[in-house]
């Protein structure tokens, strides 16, 4: 034994990798990891450079200015303020999140923990199918079917009752395009993503974590609530963030449904816009280099919002999944 150790010390680091032929695989994975980082940097650099003109003109006041007016007339100079788009983006995604997160998590719990076995495969397949439907189809359905119904059955009754006292639910509602209906369609779009990820994360919880609770006399609910959900919290938050990311960046359905108005209206039943919708609808026919630059600046802002929310989610995951000290050896 001592002899073997003396002549061939345990290889470490680079030598170890070389010796075991892992080097190739290691380089390959490293390469792909770098490609991903490279992509993020490239997007950042392109939008940063492309927005130079607008950044020089507006600086950070771009974020808070609320007039977006690209048309030059005798009376008005064009002006570019991102607040209506930022506000629309955040509010429509917030509505989507508030509706889709609880429902999606509940569906995931049902699929993983409560659903009869026979139904499980069928329902699971349907949910995955829904997640894969292109957004233009949700947009079309929203325009043709959902938004007229929503306006009649939900928006109008709300606006004419409590809307008289709560300004952000106020009417009268002239067109069936607006922030609220967009938020609801976004919710429907991200719901399957959240549900499918929640289901997968819950199914990955080892059975002994359930058995321990069952053997202590837990009901099914207590098992879910006290053992399964705490165990999978990080993954569920990840699923919700993935859905939120889709909602924030959703372009097609938002453009079709939100009404594309850069005027800020207090009521969520009125037309608005989102950063993605504004960029998509105006960039192809921008009327000046400043207009184009401002749209790219807006894209940069959207990129920043997504990044910040994801970092916040990371922090949240790290905070909550840490558990009691000593959980990670």
């Amino acid at each position, binding site marked *: 034994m001592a002899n073997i150790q003396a002549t061939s010390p345990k290889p470490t680091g680079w030598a170890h990798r070389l010796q075991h032929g892992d080097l190739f695989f290691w380089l390959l994975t490293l390469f792909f990891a770098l490609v991903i980082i490279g992509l993020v940097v490239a997007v950042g650099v392109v939008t940063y450079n492309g927005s130079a003109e607008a950044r020089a003109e507006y600086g950070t006041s771009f974020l808070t200015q609320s007039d977006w007016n690209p048309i030059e007339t005798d009376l008005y100079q064009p002006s570019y303020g991102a607040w209506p788009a930022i506000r629309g983006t955040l509010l429509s995604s917030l509505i989507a999140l508030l509706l889709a997160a609880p429902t999606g998590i509940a569906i995931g719990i049902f699929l993983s923990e409560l659903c009869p076995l026979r139904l499980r495969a069928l329902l699971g397949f349907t949910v995955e199918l829904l997640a894969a439907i292109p957004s233009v189809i949700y947009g079309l359905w929203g325009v043709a079917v959902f938004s007229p119904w929503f306006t009649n059955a939900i928006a109008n009754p709300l606006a004419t009752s409590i809307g008289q006292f709560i300004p952000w639910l106020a009417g009268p509602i002239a067109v069936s395009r607006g922030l609220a209906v967009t938020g609801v369609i976004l919710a429907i779009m991200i719901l399957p993503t959240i549900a499918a990820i929640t289901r997968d994360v819950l199914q990955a919880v080892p059975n002994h974590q359930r058995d321990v609770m069952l053997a*202590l006399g837990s009901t099914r609910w207590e098992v879910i609530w006290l053992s399964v959900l705490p165990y999978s919290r990080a993954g569920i938050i990840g699923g919700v963030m993935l859905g939120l990311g889709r909602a924030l960046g959703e372009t097609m359905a938002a453009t079709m449904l939100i009404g594309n108005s850069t005027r800020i209206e207090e009521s969520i039943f009125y037309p608005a816009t989102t950063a993605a919708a504004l960029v998509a609808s105006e960039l192809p026919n921008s009327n000046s280099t400043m207009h184009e630059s401002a749209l790219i600046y807006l894209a940069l802002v959207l990129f920043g919002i997504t990044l910040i929310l994801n970092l916040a989610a990371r922090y949240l995951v790290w905070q909550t999944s840490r*558990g009691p000290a*000593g959980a990670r050896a």
Partner: protein
Amino acid sequence: MAATAHPAHSMTVRGLKPFYAKRQAVQAVDLDVRAHEILALIGPSGCGKSTVLRCLNRMHETIPYAHAEGSVKLDDLDIYQAGIDATLVRRKIGMVFQMPIALRTRSIYENIAVGLRLGGMNDRLELDRRVEQALRSANLWDEVKDKLQLSGLALSGGQQQRLSIARTIAIEPAVILFDEPCSALDPISTLKIEELLLQLRERYTLVIVTHNMQQAARISDRTAVFMVERGQEQPVGLLVEEGSTEQIFSKPRDRRTEEYISGKVG
């Protein structure tokens, strides 16, 4: 005798047939578990030891497509009789599993308190007292008393298994079922668990599944031997004999038992 200070609970199993979907996994089982004894269930793997054990506290039916028929009595009460709440049965007949894994997201303290809280106990002082008592009974208190707020995962495998035992005895069951509690542990941790089981026998009635015949011989009072019948299209487990551990290991009545304990099968 210390045993007399503690209530004596026995179990009577008659015609127990466990099913997975339509498939009966074990032929009808008749078995007696006497008060303050350690009953060992031994046999080759796949013969249905875990399945039968899980029928004894109605854990079996928590698998969605599984059910059991027959009668299992705790003292005079048939736990399979209509109107019996399975969650209450499981609080009376506790269970410790093979994997010594603590509830992942909970501290050592909460790993014990969770069962007490489920039973409606909320008073902090009372919880503290019961947690300490359970940890002491599981011979774990001295090792963890200074780190009760740390994760259960910070403990070694053997300590985690004693934590599982403490969690089970915290709610004061009448009977405790063990499914291969030592099969993932090193020899020293195994000895500590065996010592603990012998202590617990003073207060509880114990049933232990083990694939380790020496372990059965060392700690059990009586032994039940299971085998697999491979004649049919689906192998079916069956109980071949039950008797005092001494008799089973010295003069087994059944030829299959003899072959099994002398190492010819399994």
